[in-house]
């Protein structure tokens, strides 16, 4: 960010100062009791180290409106393929100056420097994605950004800012990729999304890292009056991953859904902390996260529906279901509610179940081999979430990637 405007440089300095001022995370904090912050590089201690550089092949995606790719978090210009008039897709560092009027008020306003993960990212990111869809414009094809890690840098950073104006519509994919790495590399990413009145946004975050990656991801979306936001997060890769999506229902009648699919295998450790905040009346939110856990992997889900006073007519749901594929795999689920308005409809549910032997036997008794039977059961379990992904080809790719982990 060599040519960043003064306000951006100041914000960065402020973030760095905040990071220093904030207490070091020890793991003793309530919200950090499941995933040691040091494992995620949350104290700025850089890479766990020892990673050797490996080459990476970026996916040959087609049918995109625009693409961005950041190798090890280094800036690179956006590739614009097919964008309607007025839509902006740019590298975020460039957008600081080039689109200052759009970026300045929003950047850091949903995810600021008030906690260490936020301050670390704000102080450190070099490259990111900026998407702006003007009023009433619809981008039919997805805009996709890839953050790739090769092991050349011990800590990679990514940042995405999406603005969808009144009545506009877009789909944005953030994909996180690396080959299997010998050592450990930290990743820190933040996504901020603003959907104005009547706008629609589908965001898909696909965490497809190889071995060795440790990732803290913050995802925040604000929905205006009658806006629809759908945040889909798919976590399949990385050694230690913590994803924190928060949906802000800011406008009356807004509709915010956070959908998640995770599949932890080997010794992977995934934590998802998913929150919806109802800051306006008559809004709908639905958090639906489904996870499969195999081998000695461990997952944690913490969900919270927050309804402060003044949000009557809130309609909010939260569901987390976990499918344990073998003994030794573990899932914790903690559904939570903080409701301070009277006239609301809220429900929450968390469940952990094992693959049912009777289901397996039924399929096998028809000749379906055990692995194929498990594939069908796991796919069936995830389908409710996969169905929410609008793009068939992306849905199929994610389904295949999840299925490939079954053994």
């Amino acid at each position, binding site marked *: 960010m060599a040519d960043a405007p003064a306000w951006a440089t100041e914000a960065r300095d402020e973030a760095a100062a905040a990071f220093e001022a904030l207490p070091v995370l020890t793991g003793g904090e309530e919200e950090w009791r499941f995933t040691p912050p040091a494992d995620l590089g949350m104290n700025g201690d850089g890479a766990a180290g020892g990673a050797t550089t490996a080459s990476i092949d970026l996916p040959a995606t087609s049918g995109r409106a625009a693409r961005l790719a950041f190798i090890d978090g280094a800036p690179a210009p956006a590739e614009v393929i097919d964008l309607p008039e007025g839509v902006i897709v740019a590298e975020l560092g460039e957008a600081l100056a080039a689109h200052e009027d759009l970026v300045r008020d929003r950047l850091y306003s949903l995810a600021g420097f008030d906690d260490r993960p936020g301050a670390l990212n704000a102080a450190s990111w070099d490259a990111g994605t900026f998407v702006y869809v003007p009023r009433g414009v619809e981008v039919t094809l997805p805009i996709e950004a890839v953050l790739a890690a090769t092991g050349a840098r011990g800590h990679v950073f990514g940042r995405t800012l999406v603005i969808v104006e009144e009545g506009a519509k877009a789909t944005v994919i953030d994909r996180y990729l690396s080959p299997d790495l010998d050592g450990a590399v930290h990743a820190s990413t933040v996504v901020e999304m603003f959907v104005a009145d009547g706008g629609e946004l589908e965001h898909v975050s696909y965490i497809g890292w190889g071995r060795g990656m440790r990732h803290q991801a913050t995802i925040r979306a604000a929905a205006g009056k009658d806006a629809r936001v759908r945040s889909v997060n798919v976590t399949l890769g990385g050694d230690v991953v913590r994803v924190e999506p928060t949906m802000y229902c800011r406008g009356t009648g807004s509709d915010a859904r956070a959908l998640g699919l995770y599949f932890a295998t080997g010794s992977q450790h995934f934590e998802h902390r998913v929150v919806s905040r109802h800051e306006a009346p008559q809004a709908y939110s639905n958090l639906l996260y489904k996870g499969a856990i195999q081998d000695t992997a461990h997952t944690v889900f913490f969900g919270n529906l927050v309804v402060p006073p003044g949000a009557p007519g809130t309609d909010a749901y939260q569901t987390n279901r976990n499918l344990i594929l073998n003994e030794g795999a573990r899932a914790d689920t903690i559904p939570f509610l903080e409701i301070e308005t009277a006239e609301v409809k809220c429900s929450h549910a968390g469940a952990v179940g094992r693959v*049912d*032997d009777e289901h397996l*036997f*039924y399929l096998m*008794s*028809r000749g*379906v081999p055990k692995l194929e039977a498990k594939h069908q059961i796991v796919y*069936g379990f995830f389908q409710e979430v996969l169905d929410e992904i609008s793009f068939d080809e992306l849905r199929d790719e994610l389904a295949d990637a999840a299925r490939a982990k079954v053994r």
Partner: protein
Amino acid sequence: MADPILKIEGLEVAVEDKPILKGVNLEVPQGEVHALMGPNGSGKSTLAYALAGHPRYDITGGSVFFDGKDLAEMEADERAQAGLFLAMQYPVEVPGVSVMNFLRSAVNATRGEEIPVREFAKLFKEKSALLQFDPSFADRYLNEGFSGGEKKRHEILQMALLEPKFAVLDETDSGLDVDALRTVSEGVNAQRGPDLGVLIITHYTRILNYIKPDVVHVMYEGRIAKTGGPELAEQLEAEGYVGFGSAEPAAAPR
């Protein structure tokens, strides 16, 4: 004479270390329909699950040969691929697995090759009509929201699609009204022939009025207590299982 399609000798089966079958001897020549009757708890369903390879049913003694193969050495999927079919008494609901995907993968697995999509669609349509199985159920999840009768029709539909060499029908008549029983029985009768052996497991004689058995066996306390012709079923219809030490009737309750 050719070897029987199913040959059970001195079979002992335990469930969670509790012995249920205590030396079953039973032979079914290919092409014949045998009925296995008996009061509740005599071990009929245990035999069905043990034949199909349910992992909870341990073969602790004796032997079962199916089409010359030792079943004890085979997993459930291998048994089905070899041509053994079990129509279950209580088919489970499997959420998320669609009927169509399931049926196609079952046909592919038992045939050992991919069936072309159009050929499968045609086969499915034809066999669904035979069993009066609502084809719109193809998009549903496996057995989810099916009535008792629909589940049984679906079981026999699978039998028709998979074309097994031998089928065990475990209490297929339970929970069926007369019309459904007739349809399901016609579905089975349509498949009857020299290349299909059938073992009908039933507590009541009712289904045997629709599917005529060649041989009737009575199981009691984990063993075959008596074997005879169709007249044995008629005798049980009249007398119940009293001659075997059980007060249960064999005529269906009205």
